[in-house]
């Protein structure tokens, strides 16, 4: 037998599963975020299918009242707190340090901590199903509904829900601190603030929102917990104030809406210029519009509470309309970025176009709801469900899919299949609109949200059937996506460093990048350093 005395007896680097469990590499943590978020997307999606199945026909066929309440509550909780927010944070975690030319996040171990709180929070939420019922008071968990055990839900579900949300919120806050320190302190030489890629800017604003808003929901959740378990009376009459809960809750949850959309806007602002072969139109206007959305986001929370009669309607209405202005600026940025560009109709661009069009609808039907008299008619109807899904699914999820197709080659080194990708886009686009467009009309017809049943003479059934078919179509599109990922990982074409001829620094390293990200960086003289390299604009004059 050959002697191998000089060979190391143990591997220098951790390998396999152990490496993934103990990693502090922002790229591996980013991948963990993305995989974990897709997992909860599927769980949340199955719950949504349960809701749609029940609503397909009048009467209770598939779920009981309590189960229905649990399903829609947990659907929203998983989608918001364990899918959209962490998914956007995950892509940002992967891409932002690369885009600013940093070797890692500022606090790698805190980064790992931020991630691992998420599956733990998810397990707490899921435990509700086996301990006598999950939370069932809606994702808003308005007090005092959430303080009495609503509709026969007798378990610890609501308390588990509170603990999980505090945990997930802490994860977000630590993540936001990490992003801000990384972006402000660890940019490569030459990467001035106004040469940062737009995604990095959106992550800055998002992190500020998380930092300022998330602790506020932590405080209200703790108050709710004290009320439920220690005889507190923050929100319980007499003397306690249910409107107080709503005020504090929405002080977080409205900025949180921008936490759920701004990074997705960043994704498509990276994708549209690359696939239009043009720079982003109006870079600075976009940056200031993003900051304006963040700032205005703190002054509109009570538009969720118009019908309480406890808020000053004109102020919150006008501030809400004002948000349409910076959002409109961004629409112009995106449209004029594509104007006269050489569009390459690849899957990332298709999903970005899906974002543009669907988010436009979501923005417009949102502006309707900002008008107080209209809101009084539409409050708590399916109109609101349609609106929020047009921005969160039509906006954020299409943005996430665009980002997935765009950065998957960087993360894995392999391309996703274009044909399957386009088929997925078409199915998802049709399924999405079939599900949520009829909900506008259901809302106008007066169908309230969060009900398990409706009378057969209301005339709501046809539209509900369309929505249910649409829901299953979305599910089918996600099956195609999984198939695509499987195909790609098994035998996808090798991507190379820069498959899209993109502009930003993440494409200046290998796919996937080494642990330390860059061997060397190109000179950074604009917000498109790789474009400069390709066109020889780096020489010093």
């Amino acid at each position, binding site marked *: 037998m050959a002697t191998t005395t000089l060979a190391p007896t143990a591997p220098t680097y951790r390998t396999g599963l152990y490496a993934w469990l103990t990693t502090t590499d922002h790229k591996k943590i980013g991948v963990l975020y993305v995989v974990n978020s897709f997992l909860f997307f599927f769980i949340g999606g199955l719950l949504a299918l349960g809701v749609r199945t029940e609503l397909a026909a009048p009467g209770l066929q598939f779920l009981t009242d309590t189960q229905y309440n649990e399903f829609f509550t947990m659907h929203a909780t998983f989608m918001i707190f364990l899918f959209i927010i962490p998914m956007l944070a995950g892509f940002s975690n992967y891409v932002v340090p690369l885009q600013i030319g940093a070797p890692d996040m500022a606090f790698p171990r805190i980064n790992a901590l931020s991630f691992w709180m998420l599956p733990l929070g998810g397990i707490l939420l899921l435990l509700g199903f086996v301990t006598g019922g999950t939370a069932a008071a809606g994702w808003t968990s308005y007090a005092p509904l959430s303080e009495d055990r609503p509709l026969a839900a007798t378990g610890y579900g609501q308390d588990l829900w509170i603990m999980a949300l505090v945990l997930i919120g802490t994860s977000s806050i630590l993540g936001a601190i990490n992003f801000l320190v990384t972006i402000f*302190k660890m940019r490569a030489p030459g990467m001035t603030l106004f040469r940062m890629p737009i995604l990095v800017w959106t992550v800055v604003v998002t992190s500020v929102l998380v930092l300022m808003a998330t602790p506020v929901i932590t405080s209200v959740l703790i108050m709710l917990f004290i009320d439920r378990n220690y005889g507190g009376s923050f929100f319980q009459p007499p*003397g306690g104030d249910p409107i107080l809960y709503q005020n504090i809750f929405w002080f977080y949850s409205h900025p949180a809406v921008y936490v759920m959309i701004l990074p997705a806007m960043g994704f498509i602002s990276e994708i549209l210029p690359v696939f239009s072969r043009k720079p982003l139109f109006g870079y600075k206007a976009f940056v200031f519009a993003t900051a304006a959305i963040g700032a205005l986001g703190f002054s509109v929370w009570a538009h969720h509470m118009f019908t309480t009669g406890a808020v000053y309607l004109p102020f919150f209405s006008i501030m809400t309309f004002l948000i349409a202005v910076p959002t409109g600026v961004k629409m112009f940025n995106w449209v004029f970025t594509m104007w006269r560009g050489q569009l390459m109709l690849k899957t990332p661009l298709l999903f970005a176009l899906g974002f543009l069009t669907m988010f436009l609808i979501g923005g417009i039907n949102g502006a309707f709801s900002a008008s107080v008299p209209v809101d009084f008619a539409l409050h708590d109807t399916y109109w609101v469900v349609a609106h929020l899904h047009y921005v969160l699914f039509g906006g954020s999820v299409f943005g996430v899919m665009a980002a997935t197709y765009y950065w998957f080659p960087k993360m894995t080194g392999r391309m996703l299949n274009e044909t399957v990708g386009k088929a997925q886009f078409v199915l998802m686009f049709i399924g999405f609109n079939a599900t949520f467009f009829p909900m506008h009309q259901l809302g106008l017809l007066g169908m309230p949200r969060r009900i398990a049943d409706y009378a057969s003479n209301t005339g709501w059934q046809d539209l509900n059937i369309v929505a249910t078919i649409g829901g299953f179509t979305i599910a089918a599109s996600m099956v195609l996506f999984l198939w695509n990922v499987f195909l790609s990982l098994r035998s996808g074409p090798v991507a190379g460093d820069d498959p899209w001829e993109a502009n930003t620094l993440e494409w200046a390293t290998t796919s996937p990048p080494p642990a330390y990200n860059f061997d060397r960086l190109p000179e950074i003289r604009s917000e498109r350093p790789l474009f400069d390299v390709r066109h020889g604009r780096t020489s010093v004059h």
Partner: protein
Amino acid sequence: MTTDEKALLPVEHNPLASMPHDTHGGTSNPVLGMILFITSEVMFFGGLFAAYFNLRANAPQWPPEEFAHTLKILPFVGPATILLIISSFTCQWAVWAIRRDDRTVFIRGMAVTVVLGIVFLLMQITDYAFLGQEGLTLASGQFGTTYYTLTGFHGAHVFGGVVMLSVILYRGMAGQFSGRHYDAVEGASLYWHFVDVVWILLFSLLYLLPGKG
């Protein structure tokens, strides 16, 4: 070498070459991180304070009749407040010492700060015991709920601060800090000052602000 020549040099980015990122000047990463964390803590207490003011404004009488004089009997509130304020100064004393590389004074200052923090917590627990005897609990209406929530969360933050400073003290005694390496000390001291400021606000709110009704 001119600036332009420097710009032509490739920037090596292996983990070691990246270290200069941290020394661009300005606030160091850990201190900036702590400042941002404190920002989030301000918002957290902001939520609790908002609830306090809201409930107080809605109440016909504050404090309610049966607890009108309850808080006035507490023997340790005043001394505890003074000790906590002093501890902020001893903490800063320690920071100044380590900045000029004086480890002995640094360790002394830190040790005094930790002891003062622990004494504050013991005093608060004693006060809680007195209040319990008077019948004021978390379940005693809005007054009891807000009182214990606000002071309790402040106490939890003092506890967190004591743990943090104890780690700093332990690491200091192990010789891990010097005049060139004291970011963690700065961060922990900022947190301690924040906890102190919150207490001054809380003290003014709960014990100084006149009642109504």
